[in-house]
Protein backbone atom coordinates (compact mmCIF):
# COMPACT_ATOMS: atom_id res chain seq x y z
CA UNK A 1 0.00 0.00 0.00
CA UNK A 2 1.40 3.40 -0.90
CA UNK A 3 1.77 6.02 1.79
CA UNK A 4 2.76 9.58 2.53
CA UNK A 5 6.12 9.77 4.23
CA UNK A 6 8.74 12.29 5.23
CA UNK A 7 11.86 10.51 4.10
CA UNK A 8 15.23 11.47 5.49
CA UNK A 9 17.77 12.39 2.85
CA UNK A 10 20.91 10.30 3.17
CA UNK A 11 22.80 11.79 0.29
CA UNK A 12 22.10 14.06 -2.63
CA UNK A 13 24.79 15.01 -5.03
CA UNK A 14 25.55 16.15 -8.48
CA UNK A 15 27.02 13.37 -10.60
CA UNK A 16 27.62 15.26 -13.79
CA UNK A 17 26.31 18.50 -15.22
CA UNK A 18 22.57 18.47 -14.40
CA UNK A 19 22.36 14.85 -13.27
CA UNK A 20 21.88 14.03 -9.61
CA UNK A 21 21.45 10.98 -7.44
CA UNK A 22 19.60 11.21 -4.16
CA UNK A 23 19.29 8.48 -1.59
CA UNK A 24 16.54 8.61 1.00
CA UNK A 25 15.49 6.50 3.95
CA UNK A 26 11.80 5.68 3.67
CA UNK A 27 10.79 2.75 5.88
CA UNK A 28 7.11 2.79 5.01
CA UNK A 29 7.55 3.32 1.32
CA UNK A 30 10.60 1.22 0.49
CA UNK A 31 9.03 -2.07 1.47
CA UNK A 32 6.18 -1.61 -1.01
CA UNK A 33 8.26 -0.74 -4.07
CA UNK A 34 8.10 -2.57 -7.37
CA UNK A 35 10.20 -1.78 -10.42
CA UNK A 36 8.61 0.78 -12.73
CA UNK A 37 6.64 2.51 -10.02
CA UNK A 38 7.29 6.10 -9.07
CA UNK A 39 7.33 8.49 -6.13
CA UNK A 40 5.35 11.71 -6.20
CA UNK A 41 7.51 14.32 -4.53
CA UNK A 42 6.81 17.75 -3.07
CA UNK A 43 9.89 19.79 -3.89
CA UNK A 44 8.74 23.29 -3.08
CA UNK A 45 9.56 25.64 -0.22
CA UNK A 46 6.41 27.68 -0.90
CA UNK A 47 3.46 27.45 -3.24
CA UNK A 48 5.52 27.85 -6.38
CA UNK A 49 6.19 25.30 -7.75
CA UNK A 50 2.89 23.95 -6.52
CA UNK A 51 2.47 20.37 -7.61
CA UNK A 52 4.38 17.25 -6.75
CA UNK A 53 6.93 15.90 -9.24
CA UNK A 54 7.02 12.24 -10.30
CA UNK A 55 10.35 10.44 -10.16
CA UNK A 56 11.01 6.76 -10.84
CA UNK A 57 12.45 4.34 -8.35
CA UNK A 58 16.03 4.22 -9.50
CA UNK A 59 17.15 1.72 -6.94
CA UNK A 60 15.64 0.24 -3.81
CA UNK A 61 17.25 -1.51 -0.89
CA UNK A 62 14.38 -2.99 1.07
CA UNK A 63 16.58 -4.24 3.89
CA UNK A 64 18.02 -0.81 4.53
CA UNK A 65 14.68 0.82 3.69
CA UNK A 66 16.46 3.04 1.22
CA UNK A 67 15.39 4.38 -2.13
CA UNK A 68 17.63 6.02 -4.70
CA UNK A 69 16.47 8.54 -7.26
CA UNK A 70 18.29 9.50 -10.43
CA UNK A 71 17.15 12.84 -11.73
CA UNK A 72 17.96 15.51 -14.21
CA UNK A 73 17.49 19.16 -13.29
CA UNK A 74 15.21 20.60 -15.97
CA UNK A 75 13.09 23.18 -14.15
CA UNK A 76 12.03 24.66 -10.85
CA UNK A 77 11.06 21.47 -9.07
CA UNK A 78 14.15 19.46 -9.88
CA UNK A 79 16.33 22.50 -9.13
CA UNK A 80 14.83 22.70 -5.65
CA UNK A 81 15.39 18.99 -5.20
CA UNK A 82 19.04 19.45 -6.12
CA UNK A 83 19.35 22.15 -3.45
CA UNK A 84 18.31 19.82 -0.63
CA UNK A 85 20.85 18.53 1.85
CA UNK A 86 21.40 15.27 3.72
CA UNK A 87 19.48 15.31 6.96
CA UNK A 88 16.56 17.24 5.51
CA UNK A 89 13.26 15.50 4.98
CA UNK A 90 11.65 14.86 1.63
CA UNK A 91 7.85 14.75 1.38
CA UNK A 92 7.14 11.68 -0.74
CA UNK A 93 3.98 9.87 -1.76
CA UNK A 94 4.19 6.38 -3.15
CA UNK A 95 5.06 4.02 -4.54
CA UNK A 96 2.51 4.85 -7.21
CA UNK A 97 1.52 3.42 -10.51
CA UNK A 98 1.59 0.18 -12.23
CA UNK A 99 5.15 -1.14 -12.65
CA UNK A 100 6.86 -3.53 -15.03
CA UNK A 101 5.59 -7.07 -15.22
CA UNK A 102 8.04 -9.71 -14.10
CA UNK A 103 8.29 -13.01 -15.93
CA UNK A 104 7.07 -16.16 -14.21
CA UNK A 105 10.09 -18.07 -15.40
CA UNK A 106 13.53 -16.76 -16.30
CA UNK A 107 13.91 -15.10 -19.68
CA UNK A 108 16.44 -13.30 -21.82
CA UNK A 109 15.50 -9.67 -21.29
CA UNK A 110 16.62 -6.59 -23.17
CA UNK A 111 16.70 -3.28 -21.34
CA UNK A 112 16.88 -0.18 -23.50
CA UNK A 113 17.48 2.99 -21.54
CA UNK A 114 18.12 6.42 -23.02
CA UNK A 115 19.63 9.03 -20.70
CA UNK A 116 17.69 9.41 -17.43
CA UNK A 117 15.34 6.88 -19.01
CA UNK A 118 17.68 4.37 -17.39
CA UNK A 119 16.24 5.47 -14.03
CA UNK A 120 13.39 2.94 -13.81
CA UNK A 121 15.40 0.20 -15.53
CA UNK A 122 18.14 -0.21 -12.96
CA UNK A 123 15.86 -1.35 -10.17
CA UNK A 124 14.05 -3.50 -12.71
CA UNK A 125 17.39 -5.07 -13.66
CA UNK A 126 18.11 -5.82 -10.02
CA UNK A 127 14.78 -7.59 -9.51
CA UNK A 128 15.00 -9.42 -12.83
CA UNK A 129 18.42 -10.76 -11.93
CA UNK A 130 17.12 -11.88 -8.56
CA UNK A 131 14.59 -13.87 -10.56
CA UNK A 132 17.41 -15.44 -12.54
CA UNK A 133 16.76 -13.64 -15.80
CA UNK A 134 19.54 -13.04 -18.27
CA UNK A 135 19.98 -9.36 -19.10
CA UNK A 136 21.34 -7.28 -21.91
CA UNK A 137 21.18 -3.56 -21.22
CA UNK A 138 21.60 -1.08 -24.04
CA UNK A 139 22.51 2.23 -22.51
CA UNK A 140 22.54 5.38 -24.62
CA UNK A 141 23.68 8.79 -23.45
CA UNK A 142 25.25 11.95 -24.84
CA UNK A 143 28.67 11.44 -23.37
CA UNK A 144 30.53 8.95 -21.21
CA UNK A 145 30.13 10.90 -17.98
CA UNK A 146 26.38 10.51 -18.13
CA UNK A 147 26.63 6.73 -17.74
CA UNK A 148 25.67 6.95 -14.09
CA UNK A 149 23.97 3.57 -13.85
CA UNK A 150 26.77 1.63 -15.56
CA UNK A 151 28.58 0.40 -12.50
CA UNK A 152 25.44 -0.73 -10.74
CA UNK A 153 24.17 -2.48 -13.87
CA UNK A 154 27.38 -4.44 -14.18
CA UNK A 155 27.48 -5.22 -10.47
CA UNK A 156 23.97 -6.63 -10.75
CA UNK A 157 25.23 -8.95 -13.42
CA UNK A 158 23.74 -7.45 -16.52
CA UNK A 159 25.61 -7.38 -19.77
CA UNK A 160 25.83 -3.75 -20.89
CA UNK A 161 26.34 -2.24 -24.32
CA UNK A 162 26.84 1.46 -24.65
CA UNK A 163 26.12 4.11 -27.23
CA UNK A 164 27.25 7.71 -26.83
CA UNK A 165 26.40 10.52 -29.19
CA UNK A 166 29.94 11.88 -29.00
CA UNK A 167 31.57 8.47 -29.24
CA UNK A 168 33.36 8.93 -25.91
CA UNK A 169 32.37 5.42 -24.85
CA UNK A 170 30.98 2.37 -26.64
CA UNK A 171 29.42 2.77 -30.03
CA UNK A 172 29.04 6.23 -31.49
CA UNK A 173 25.51 7.35 -32.22
CA UNK A 174 21.98 7.37 -30.97
CA UNK A 175 20.37 4.47 -29.16
CA UNK A 176 18.70 2.86 -32.19
CA UNK A 177 18.30 -0.81 -33.08
CA UNK A 178 20.53 -0.60 -36.19
CA UNK A 179 23.51 0.38 -34.06
CA UNK A 180 23.23 -2.86 -32.11
CA UNK A 181 22.13 -5.23 -34.85
CA UNK A 182 25.09 -7.55 -34.35
CA UNK A 183 24.57 -8.32 -30.71
CA UNK A 184 20.81 -8.31 -31.10
CA UNK A 185 21.06 -10.91 -33.81
CA UNK A 186 23.37 -12.99 -31.67
CA UNK A 187 21.11 -12.99 -28.59
CA UNK A 188 17.66 -14.46 -28.68
CA UNK A 189 15.84 -11.72 -26.77
CA UNK A 190 12.51 -12.81 -25.32
CA UNK A 191 11.27 -9.59 -23.78
CA UNK A 192 12.13 -5.90 -24.08
CA UNK A 193 11.78 -3.16 -21.48
CA UNK A 194 12.44 0.45 -22.43
CA UNK A 195 12.37 3.97 -21.13
CA UNK A 196 13.66 7.14 -22.72
CA UNK A 197 12.65 9.68 -25.34
CA UNK A 198 9.52 8.58 -27.16
CA UNK A 199 11.13 9.01 -30.56
CA UNK A 200 13.72 6.44 -29.48
CA UNK A 201 11.19 4.06 -27.96
CA UNK A 202 9.18 4.19 -31.17
CA UNK A 203 12.09 2.68 -33.09
CA UNK A 204 12.44 -0.08 -30.55
CA UNK A 205 8.73 -0.73 -30.67
CA UNK A 206 9.04 -1.26 -34.43
CA UNK A 207 12.04 -3.48 -33.94
CA UNK A 208 10.18 -5.55 -31.35
CA UNK A 209 7.18 -5.87 -33.60
CA UNK A 210 9.33 -7.02 -36.52
CA UNK A 211 11.02 -9.57 -34.34
CA UNK A 212 7.78 -10.55 -32.61
CA UNK A 213 9.19 -9.79 -29.20
CA UNK A 214 6.79 -8.66 -26.49
CA UNK A 215 7.75 -5.84 -24.22
CA UNK A 216 6.90 -2.89 -22.03
CA UNK A 217 7.81 0.77 -21.91
CA UNK A 218 7.40 3.56 -19.41
CA UNK A 219 5.68 6.79 -20.44
CA UNK A 220 5.55 10.29 -18.99
CA UNK A 221 2.90 12.98 -18.80
CA UNK A 222 2.60 16.04 -16.65
CA UNK A 223 0.86 14.92 -13.45
CA UNK A 224 -1.24 16.47 -10.70
CA UNK A 225 -2.70 13.81 -8.39
CA UNK A 226 -0.63 10.77 -9.32
CA UNK A 227 -3.40 8.35 -8.36
CA UNK A 228 -6.06 8.57 -11.07
CA UNK A 229 -8.24 11.15 -9.33
CA UNK A 230 -7.74 14.21 -11.53
CA UNK A 231 -7.74 12.60 -14.98
CA UNK A 232 -4.97 15.00 -15.92
CA UNK A 233 -2.28 12.66 -17.24
CA UNK A 234 -4.45 11.41 -20.07
CA UNK A 235 -3.08 9.72 -23.13
CA UNK A 236 -4.84 8.01 -25.99
CA UNK A 237 -2.80 4.83 -26.32
CA UNK A 238 -3.98 4.13 -29.84
CA UNK A 239 -5.57 6.66 -32.19
CA UNK A 240 -8.64 4.47 -32.55
CA UNK A 241 -9.26 4.16 -28.80
CA UNK A 242 -12.30 5.95 -27.47
CA UNK A 243 -10.95 6.49 -23.99
CA UNK A 244 -7.78 7.93 -22.59
CA UNK A 245 -5.41 5.95 -20.39
CA UNK A 246 -4.11 7.62 -17.24
CA UNK A 247 -0.34 7.44 -17.14
CA UNK A 248 -0.22 7.56 -13.34
CA UNK A 249 -2.61 4.73 -12.67
CA UNK A 250 -2.91 2.63 -15.83
CA UNK A 251 0.83 3.16 -16.29
CA UNK A 252 3.43 4.56 -16.31
CA UNK A 253 4.33 1.16 -17.74
CA UNK A 254 2.39 -0.05 -20.75
CA UNK A 255 2.62 -3.12 -22.88
CA UNK A 256 4.19 -2.36 -26.28
CA UNK A 257 1.24 -3.81 -28.13
CA UNK A 258 -1.39 -1.70 -26.42
CA UNK A 259 -0.05 1.58 -27.72
CA UNK A 260 1.05 3.43 -30.80
CA UNK A 261 3.93 5.80 -30.15
Amino acid at each position, binding site marked *: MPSLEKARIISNSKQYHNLYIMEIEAPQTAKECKPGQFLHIFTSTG*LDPLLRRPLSLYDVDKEAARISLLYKVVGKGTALLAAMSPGEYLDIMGPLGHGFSLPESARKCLLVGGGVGMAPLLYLARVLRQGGNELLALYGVGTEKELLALERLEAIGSQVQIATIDGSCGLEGPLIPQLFSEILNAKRIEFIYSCGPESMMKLWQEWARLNRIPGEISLEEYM*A*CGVGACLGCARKLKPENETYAKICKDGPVFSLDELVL
Partner: protein
Amino acid sequence: MDLTVNLGGIKLKNPVAVASGTFGYGFEYADFIEPERIGAVIVKGTTLNPRPGNPGPRIYETPAAMLNAIGLENPGIKVFLREYLPLLRARQVTIIANIAGNNMEEYALMASMLQGHEGIAGIELNISCPNVKQGGIQFGTDPDTVRQVVAAVKRETTLPVMPKLSPNVTDIVAIALAAAEGGADALSMINTLGGMAIDINKRKPVLGNVFGGLSGPAIKPVALKMIYQVYQEVHLPILGGGGIVNHIDALEFFMAGATAVSIGTGNFINPRLALELLEGIEKYMQEQGFSSIQELVGIAHAY
Protein backbone atom coordinates in the same frame (compact mmCIF):
# COMPACT_ATOMS: atom_id res chain seq x y z
CA MET B 1 -17.33 21.32 19.70
CA ASP B 2 -19.94 21.36 17.00
CA LEU B 3 -18.45 20.81 13.58
CA THR B 4 -21.56 19.65 11.75
CA VAL B 5 -22.96 22.00 9.19
CA ASN B 6 -26.17 22.27 7.30
CA LEU B 7 -25.53 23.49 3.81
CA GLY B 8 -29.09 24.35 2.81
CA GLY B 9 -30.27 20.88 3.68
CA ILE B 10 -27.05 19.07 2.81
CA LYS B 11 -25.96 17.70 6.17
CA LEU B 12 -22.20 17.43 6.62
CA LYS B 13 -20.44 15.79 9.54
CA ASN B 14 -17.80 18.46 9.30
CA PRO B 15 -17.32 21.58 7.20
CA VAL B 16 -14.52 20.35 4.94
CA ALA B 17 -15.47 18.89 1.56
CA VAL B 18 -13.34 17.79 -1.35
CA ALA B 19 -14.13 19.47 -4.66
CA SER B 20 -15.48 17.86 -7.78
CA GLY B 21 -12.91 16.60 -10.24
CA THR B 22 -10.08 16.62 -7.75
CA PHE B 23 -11.00 13.52 -5.79
CA GLY B 24 -12.25 11.17 -8.47
CA TYR B 25 -15.07 9.00 -7.21
CA GLY B 26 -13.86 9.00 -3.64
CA PHE B 27 -11.67 5.92 -3.67
CA GLU B 28 -8.65 6.92 -5.73
CA TYR B 29 -7.08 8.43 -2.63
CA ALA B 30 -8.33 5.77 -0.23
CA ASP B 31 -4.81 4.54 0.55
CA PHE B 32 -4.09 7.96 1.98
CA ILE B 33 -7.32 9.17 3.52
CA GLU B 34 -10.60 7.59 4.62
CA PRO B 35 -13.26 9.19 2.41
CA GLU B 36 -15.99 8.64 5.00
CA ARG B 37 -14.19 10.97 7.42
CA ILE B 38 -14.37 13.87 4.98
CA GLY B 39 -17.26 16.35 5.37
CA ALA B 40 -18.42 15.52 1.86
CA VAL B 41 -16.96 14.02 -1.23
CA ILE B 42 -18.18 15.85 -4.30
CA VAL B 43 -17.65 13.36 -7.05
CA LYS B 44 -16.28 14.04 -10.52
CA GLY B 45 -18.64 15.97 -12.78
CA THR B 46 -21.18 13.63 -14.33
CA THR B 47 -22.93 14.04 -17.64
CA LEU B 48 -25.91 12.22 -19.09
CA ASN B 49 -23.85 10.26 -21.59
CA PRO B 50 -20.27 9.09 -21.19
CA ARG B 51 -17.63 11.59 -22.28
CA PRO B 52 -14.05 10.75 -23.25
CA GLY B 53 -12.74 14.19 -22.23
CA ASN B 54 -10.27 16.44 -24.02
CA PRO B 55 -7.04 15.46 -25.75
CA GLY B 56 -3.88 16.14 -23.72
CA PRO B 57 -2.03 17.89 -22.37
CA ARG B 58 -4.89 18.41 -19.96
CA ILE B 59 -3.06 20.01 -17.07
CA TYR B 60 -0.23 22.45 -16.66
CA GLU B 61 1.30 24.15 -13.69
CA THR B 62 1.39 27.95 -13.46
CA PRO B 63 2.62 30.15 -10.59
CA ALA B 64 0.91 28.94 -7.39
CA ALA B 65 -1.78 27.42 -9.55
CA MET B 66 -2.60 24.96 -12.28
CA LEU B 67 -4.62 24.94 -15.44
CA ASN B 68 -6.87 22.03 -16.28
CA ALA B 69 -8.89 21.17 -19.32
CA ILE B 70 -10.09 17.68 -18.52
CA GLY B 71 -13.23 18.21 -20.55
CA LEU B 72 -15.54 16.39 -18.14
CA GLU B 73 -14.27 12.91 -18.84
CA ASN B 74 -16.75 10.61 -17.11
CA PRO B 75 -18.60 7.35 -17.74
CA GLY B 76 -22.06 8.94 -17.65
CA ILE B 77 -24.68 9.11 -14.94
CA LYS B 78 -25.91 5.54 -15.34
CA VAL B 79 -22.50 4.07 -14.65
CA PHE B 80 -22.09 6.45 -11.74
CA LEU B 81 -25.34 5.28 -10.18
CA ARG B 82 -24.73 1.63 -10.90
CA GLU B 83 -21.04 1.26 -10.14
CA TYR B 84 -19.70 4.05 -7.98
CA LEU B 85 -22.62 5.07 -5.81
CA PRO B 86 -23.11 1.67 -4.14
CA LEU B 87 -19.45 1.49 -3.17
CA LEU B 88 -19.52 4.95 -1.64
CA ARG B 89 -22.81 4.27 0.10
CA ALA B 90 -21.50 1.02 1.56
CA ARG B 91 -18.68 2.93 3.15
CA GLN B 92 -21.03 5.69 4.38
CA VAL B 93 -19.30 8.43 2.49
CA THR B 94 -21.24 11.70 2.40
CA ILE B 95 -21.72 12.12 -1.32
CA ILE B 96 -22.62 15.18 -3.31
CA ALA B 97 -23.25 14.50 -6.97
CA ASN B 98 -21.98 17.03 -9.50
CA ILE B 99 -23.89 17.22 -12.77
CA ALA B 100 -23.36 19.10 -16.03
CA GLY B 101 -25.81 19.10 -18.91
CA ASN B 102 -25.65 20.09 -22.55
CA ASN B 103 -28.98 21.84 -22.16
CA MET B 104 -31.73 22.51 -19.60
CA GLU B 105 -33.45 19.26 -20.35
CA GLU B 106 -30.34 17.25 -19.62
CA TYR B 107 -29.86 18.98 -16.27
CA ALA B 108 -33.49 18.25 -15.38
CA LEU B 109 -33.27 14.67 -16.59
CA MET B 110 -30.13 13.97 -14.59
CA ALA B 111 -31.71 15.48 -11.49
CA SER B 112 -34.67 13.15 -11.88
CA MET B 113 -32.34 10.20 -12.38
CA LEU B 114 -30.55 10.97 -9.10
CA GLN B 115 -33.89 11.24 -7.28
CA GLY B 116 -34.60 8.39 -4.89
CA HIS B 117 -31.08 7.01 -4.83
CA GLU B 118 -30.11 6.56 -1.26
CA GLY B 119 -26.81 7.99 -0.16
CA ILE B 120 -26.75 11.18 -2.16
CA ALA B 121 -26.73 14.15 0.19
CA GLY B 122 -27.21 16.80 -2.44
CA ILE B 123 -26.63 17.92 -5.99
CA GLU B 124 -23.97 20.36 -7.08
CA LEU B 125 -25.00 21.89 -10.39
CA ASN B 126 -21.97 22.50 -12.51
CA ILE B 127 -23.00 25.53 -14.55
CA SER B 128 -19.46 26.78 -14.70
CA CYS B 129 -17.21 24.26 -16.39
CA PRO B 130 -14.93 26.23 -18.71
CA ASN B 131 -13.60 23.17 -20.52
CA VAL B 132 -16.43 21.84 -22.61
CA LYS B 133 -17.79 23.21 -25.85
CA GLN B 134 -21.42 22.65 -25.03
CA GLY B 135 -22.98 23.01 -21.60
CA GLY B 136 -20.97 24.15 -18.66
CA ILE B 137 -19.98 27.71 -18.39
CA GLN B 138 -22.51 29.38 -20.64
CA PHE B 139 -25.19 28.31 -18.20
CA GLY B 140 -23.45 30.14 -15.44
CA THR B 141 -22.79 33.57 -16.92
CA ASP B 142 -26.29 34.84 -17.63
CA PRO B 143 -28.62 35.46 -14.67
CA ASP B 144 -31.79 34.42 -16.54
CA THR B 145 -30.31 31.14 -17.62
CA VAL B 146 -29.03 30.47 -14.13
CA ARG B 147 -32.50 31.02 -12.65
CA GLN B 148 -34.10 28.76 -15.23
CA VAL B 149 -31.67 25.90 -14.96
CA VAL B 150 -31.84 25.90 -11.17
CA ALA B 151 -35.64 25.97 -11.30
CA ALA B 152 -35.72 23.17 -13.85
CA VAL B 153 -33.57 20.99 -11.63
CA LYS B 154 -35.52 21.85 -8.48
CA ARG B 155 -38.74 20.67 -10.12
CA GLU B 156 -37.28 17.20 -10.58
CA THR B 157 -35.78 16.54 -7.22
CA THR B 158 -36.31 16.76 -3.50
CA LEU B 159 -32.56 16.77 -2.92
CA PRO B 160 -30.89 20.03 -1.93
CA VAL B 161 -29.56 21.78 -5.03
CA MET B 162 -26.35 23.82 -4.97
CA PRO B 163 -25.34 25.58 -8.18
CA LYS B 164 -21.60 26.04 -8.60
CA LEU B 165 -20.86 29.55 -9.73
CA SER B 166 -18.28 30.66 -12.22
CA PRO B 167 -15.98 33.54 -11.27
CA ASN B 168 -15.73 34.55 -14.92
CA VAL B 169 -18.53 37.08 -14.67
CA THR B 170 -18.88 40.82 -14.33
CA ASP B 171 -21.35 40.66 -11.47
CA ILE B 172 -21.26 37.58 -9.27
CA VAL B 173 -23.97 38.95 -6.98
CA ALA B 174 -26.45 39.12 -9.87
CA ILE B 175 -25.72 35.48 -10.70
CA ALA B 176 -26.07 34.42 -7.07
CA LEU B 177 -29.35 36.27 -6.72
CA ALA B 178 -30.66 34.59 -9.86
CA ALA B 179 -29.68 31.20 -8.45
CA ALA B 180 -31.55 32.06 -5.26
CA GLU B 181 -34.62 33.07 -7.24
CA GLY B 182 -34.46 29.79 -9.11
CA GLY B 183 -34.72 28.02 -5.76
CA ALA B 184 -31.14 27.12 -4.97
CA ASP B 185 -30.63 25.72 -1.48
CA ALA B 186 -26.98 26.67 -1.27
CA LEU B 187 -24.23 28.08 -3.46
CA SER B 188 -20.89 26.54 -4.34
CA MET B 189 -18.21 29.14 -5.05
CA ILE B 190 -16.00 29.28 -7.00
CA ASN B 191 -15.19 27.18 -10.00
CA THR B 192 -11.99 27.84 -11.94
CA LEU B 193 -11.00 31.09 -13.63
CA GLY B 194 -10.49 30.92 -17.37
CA GLY B 195 -6.85 30.87 -18.36
CA MET B 196 -4.22 29.54 -20.72
CA ALA B 197 -0.48 29.05 -21.14
CA ILE B 198 1.74 29.06 -24.18
CA ASP B 199 4.65 26.75 -24.85
CA ILE B 200 7.24 29.13 -26.25
CA ASN B 201 9.28 26.29 -27.70
CA LYS B 202 6.41 24.79 -29.63
CA ARG B 203 4.94 28.27 -30.17
CA LYS B 204 1.46 27.05 -29.42
CA PRO B 205 -0.96 26.78 -26.52
CA VAL B 206 0.13 24.18 -23.96
CA LEU B 207 -3.27 22.62 -23.40
CA GLY B 208 -4.85 20.36 -25.95
CA ASN B 209 -8.04 22.36 -25.44
CA VAL B 210 -6.16 25.71 -25.74
CA PHE B 211 -8.02 27.20 -22.75
CA GLY B 212 -8.33 25.73 -19.30
CA GLY B 213 -9.50 26.48 -15.80
CA LEU B 214 -7.16 28.04 -13.28
CA SER B 215 -7.26 26.64 -9.75
CA GLY B 216 -5.04 26.66 -6.68
CA PRO B 217 -3.70 29.23 -4.22
CA ALA B 218 -3.33 31.91 -6.89
CA ILE B 219 -7.12 32.29 -7.15
CA LYS B 220 -7.84 32.48 -3.42
CA PRO B 221 -8.14 36.28 -3.29
CA VAL B 222 -10.68 36.21 -6.13
CA ALA B 223 -12.73 33.51 -4.42
CA LEU B 224 -12.72 35.33 -1.09
CA LYS B 225 -13.91 38.56 -2.62
CA MET B 226 -16.79 36.93 -4.46
CA ILE B 227 -17.89 35.01 -1.40
CA TYR B 228 -17.64 38.13 0.74
CA GLN B 229 -19.80 40.04 -1.73
CA VAL B 230 -22.40 37.33 -2.12
CA TYR B 231 -22.62 36.75 1.63
CA GLN B 232 -23.71 40.34 2.04
CA GLU B 233 -26.44 40.25 -0.57
CA VAL B 234 -27.75 36.71 -0.81
CA HIS B 235 -29.22 34.71 2.04
CA LEU B 236 -28.00 31.26 1.09
CA PRO B 237 -25.31 29.15 2.72
CA ILE B 238 -22.09 29.04 0.73
CA LEU B 239 -19.68 26.19 0.13
CA GLY B 240 -16.51 28.19 -0.32
CA GLY B 241 -13.34 27.14 -2.06
CA GLY B 242 -10.61 28.22 -4.41
CA GLY B 243 -6.99 27.81 -3.47
CA ILE B 244 -7.33 26.39 0.01
CA VAL B 245 -4.14 24.60 1.05
CA ASN B 246 -4.12 25.01 4.83
CA HIS B 247 -6.41 25.74 7.75
CA ILE B 248 -5.61 29.44 7.73
CA ASP B 249 -6.93 29.65 4.18
CA ALA B 250 -10.03 27.78 5.32
CA LEU B 251 -10.57 30.20 8.21
CA GLU B 252 -10.39 33.10 5.77
CA PHE B 253 -13.24 31.51 3.83
CA PHE B 254 -15.39 30.98 6.91
CA MET B 255 -14.81 34.55 8.01
CA ALA B 256 -15.68 35.82 4.53
CA GLY B 257 -19.00 34.01 4.73
CA ALA B 258 -18.61 30.36 3.79
CA THR B 259 -20.61 27.83 5.82
CA ALA B 260 -18.34 25.01 4.67
CA VAL B 261 -15.21 24.84 2.55
CA SER B 262 -13.99 22.69 -0.29
CA ILE B 263 -10.50 21.60 -1.22
CA GLY B 264 -9.62 21.06 -4.85
CA THR B 265 -6.05 21.46 -6.04
CA GLY B 266 -4.89 21.19 -2.43
CA ASN B 267 -5.64 17.47 -2.51
CA PHE B 268 -2.93 17.01 -5.13
CA ILE B 269 -0.34 18.53 -2.83
CA ASN B 270 -1.49 16.71 0.25
CA PRO B 271 -4.10 13.96 -0.06
CA ARG B 272 -4.71 14.10 3.68
CA LEU B 273 -5.38 17.81 3.60
CA ALA B 274 -9.10 17.54 4.35
CA LEU B 275 -8.41 15.91 7.71
CA GLU B 276 -5.40 18.05 8.55
CA LEU B 277 -7.46 21.13 7.80
CA LEU B 278 -10.13 19.92 10.14
CA GLU B 279 -7.60 19.45 12.93
CA GLY B 280 -6.27 22.94 12.34
CA ILE B 281 -9.75 24.42 12.44
CA GLU B 282 -10.62 22.56 15.64
CA LYS B 283 -7.43 23.72 17.29
CA TYR B 284 -8.07 27.31 16.30
CA MET B 285 -11.63 27.14 17.58
CA GLN B 286 -10.49 25.68 20.88
CA GLU B 287 -7.79 28.26 21.36
CA GLN B 288 -10.03 31.14 20.41
CA GLY B 289 -13.03 29.92 22.35
CA PHE B 290 -15.45 29.13 19.55
CA SER B 291 -17.84 26.29 20.22
CA SER B 292 -19.54 26.04 16.85
CA ILE B 293 -18.24 26.59 13.38
CA GLN B 294 -21.31 28.73 12.70
CA GLU B 295 -19.90 31.43 14.98
CA LEU B 296 -17.05 31.96 12.53
CA VAL B 297 -19.16 32.28 9.42
CA GLY B 298 -19.08 35.82 8.08
CA ILE B 299 -17.33 37.20 11.14
CA ALA B 300 -15.13 39.43 8.97
CA HIS B 301 -18.19 41.47 8.04
CA ALA B 302 -18.64 42.66 11.61
CA TYR B 303 -15.46 44.70 11.89
